[in-house]
């Protein structure tokens, strides 16, 4: 069985470049969209800075990867190192690329020490061009490597796992503090970035962030549990059980993807027609889905623990209208889900004309070539 069947290698240098140019554009739009989406169900105003931070990191990661693969296809004609993307329901680079990037980052210092400086490389390139009168491919490759490792050491990057960070947001009462914890992972199953935001109340003796016994455990628990296959209620329930004095009140998950593109990915259903009709002009044939799932605690109950003490457990409101299924585990694990689609004006127009069923509940953000964003129901 081939498990990498839906992976696709970008074979040509120009293909890789076009792919990264597209992503750079999409991410710049995303930041605009992040400003425009402020609402209860999509993103709160106070969550926007968090989202922005992760989006910038994501942009940094894409820039780094684009440097890495800029000339990789041209230096060695046999078995070049190529970028693999997931062409089904993702459009993003595969998880392994991010793990490899983390490996590279660990050795960035060594590489930067051994590579000549940019100025030397450029001088050598001019030298090569004037003397040999050919393209200095190997020097260009060295320069791209240098850029890559510099990006790895200086820019903020979206890793395969971005460990939880927390901020104190206020006190409920003297013995109960409120925190907002956020973290992000690159989901290894779907190959898309996921951002989590959790509001929790802490009734422990010591403040959570100063408590070296709980906080590292909280961090490793949350990262180990953040997989897209787990429903929000599962994650929140498990967390609530494992930490008796931490009470997750609201858990939110942002899916930044999948990215659909007629050139790069494989899609089925109505979106395929929309994108294929819009695909005459390069740069216009994409759409990015953005989903927000929210889980809200609707109340608490006391549960006995041991013989004398009780612990507080949260009860979560689940969305009764979402995801029909016969099995209890098929039902929705969230209180609310808002789906949005970001796409350029041209495919948006085609989408409106075709008016395929199933798209009416999705909020659409049409992006103009100038970067102006309009939102339609």
């Amino acid at each position, binding site marked *: 069985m081939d498990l990498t069947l839906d992976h696709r290698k970008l074979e040509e240098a120009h293909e890789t470049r076009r792919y990264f140019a597209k992503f750079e554009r999409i991410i710049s739009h995303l930041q605009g969209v992040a400003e425009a989406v402020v609402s209860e169900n999509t993103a709160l105003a106070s969550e926007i800075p968090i989202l922005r931070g992760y989006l910038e990191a994501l942009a940094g990661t894409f820039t780094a990867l684009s440097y890495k693969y800029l000339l990789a296809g041209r230096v060695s004609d046999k078995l070049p190192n190529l970028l693999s993307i997931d062409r089904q329901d993702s459009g993003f680079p595969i998880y392994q690329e991010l*793990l490899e990037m983390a490996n590279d980052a660990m050795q960035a210092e060594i590489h930067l020490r051994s590579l000549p400086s940019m100025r030397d490389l450029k001088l050598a390139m001019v030298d090569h061009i004037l003397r040999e009168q050919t393209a200095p491919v190997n020097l260009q490759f060295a320069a791209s490597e240098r850029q890559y490792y510099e990006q790895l050491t200086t820019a903020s990057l979206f890793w395969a796992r971005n460990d939880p960070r927390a901020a104190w947001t206020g006190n409920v009462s003297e013995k109960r503090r409120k925190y907002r914890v956020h973290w992000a992972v690159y989901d290894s199953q779907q190959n898309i970035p996921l951002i989590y935001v959790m509001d929790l109340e802490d009734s422990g003796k010591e403040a959570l962030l100063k408590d070296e016994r709980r906080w590292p455990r909280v961090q490793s628990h949350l990262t180990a*549990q953040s997989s897209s296959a787990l429903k929000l209620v*599962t994650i929140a329930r498990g967390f609530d059980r*494992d930490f008796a004095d931490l009470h997750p009140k609201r858990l939110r998950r942002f899916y930044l993807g999948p990215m659909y593109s007629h050139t790069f990915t494989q899609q089925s259903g109505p979106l395929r027609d929309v994108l294929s009709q819009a695909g005459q002009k390069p740069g216009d044939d994409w759409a990015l889905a953005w989903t927000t799932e929210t889980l809200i605690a609707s109340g608490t109950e006391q549960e006995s623990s041991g013989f004398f003490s009780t612990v507080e457990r949260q*009860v979560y409101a689940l969305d009764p209208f979402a995801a029909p299924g016969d099995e209890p585990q098929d039902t929705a694990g969230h209180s609310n889900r808002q789906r949005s689609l970001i796409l350029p004006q041209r495919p948006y127009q085609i989408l409106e004309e075709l008016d395929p069923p199933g798209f009416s509940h999705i909020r659409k953000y049409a992006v103009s070539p100038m970067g102006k964003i309009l939102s339609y129901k």
Partner: protein
Amino acid sequence: MADFNAQIEKSKQEVAAARQKIDELTSKIETAHTKMNAGQDISIDIENATLDDVHAHTELMGANIAELIMGLDDVTATFSKEFDAMRSKTGWETFIGFFSKNRSDSIRQERMRGASIDDKLQDLISKSNTIGYLLQEQLNTLNEHSKRVESNLGDTLAQREQSVATLEEIKKQLVAMDPEIIALENKISVETDAAARTKLESELAAMNAKYNQLAQDEQVKLAESQTLERYIEKGKTWVDSLQNQAATQMVLINKLQTDTKQRVVLYDALVKSLKTAQQQDVAHKINEIGVATDKEAQSAMAAIGSATNQRMADMMEAHEDHMVFARKVLEEKAKSDERFARRFQQIVEKHDKNAYGA
């Protein structure tokens, strides 16, 4: 994984040694090339450039690297241990299980929730990359050498063509001289005048000298062409061998890359599915107890809510208890909405007709 690291070090040394051997041989061939260009005799150099040594070493190195790739299986064996641990209970959990099954289950679930193999995947990728770099470097060396030797061979081939052409030219001249000499000899045999005969004989001597000169040239050129041919043979074998080695190398790299990619996807999928299956239904069951109290709130909310949707109610049709309840709520809400609309209509009508107090 000290064992693995030691093996990597060993393979690195082997690769370095193999590269040195390859360098030596290519430089021998190149020295021969320069010597030949300078017009020196190169037969000995050619004899010295033997491939056996290189081949023996390359084989050794190949076996070593293949072993290294197999060794990755040992790294991955730790994964299956992890999976087994996730599937079964630890000794402590079994022990607790004698007293309380629930407690034992809950400890195990907690262990599952905290389990992560990300660092192991990272380790696998980094190890596989280390081997990959090793192989890739060797492959680059092989390619570079085969290019160098090939370009040398190109020169030599041109040279040999030239020398063969010269040889042909000489042969042609020799063949052309034969009838001339015979004609001259015939002339001498019939010539009676002594002065003319002497002149003819000296002509014949000159021609013979030229013939001999040409024959000697032919010998030299023949030898040169043969040397070149041997050089080319040697070079060709070397290029062939380099290309063979490169092909082996590519097969190794390909296997390594494919294996690693598949493994990463497979292990990750396994862990995620184990976690999901273990937790998802449990979380729902637990939440359902709490949901009972929630239903109250839901019905209250529905009374306040906005317009109803018949399609939603249809969707609810075949659902579980919770869902049926939600549907009932919806239906009640629909009824109340309808009632409200009716009442509202009456108000509108009253308003329109200005029927207040009428």
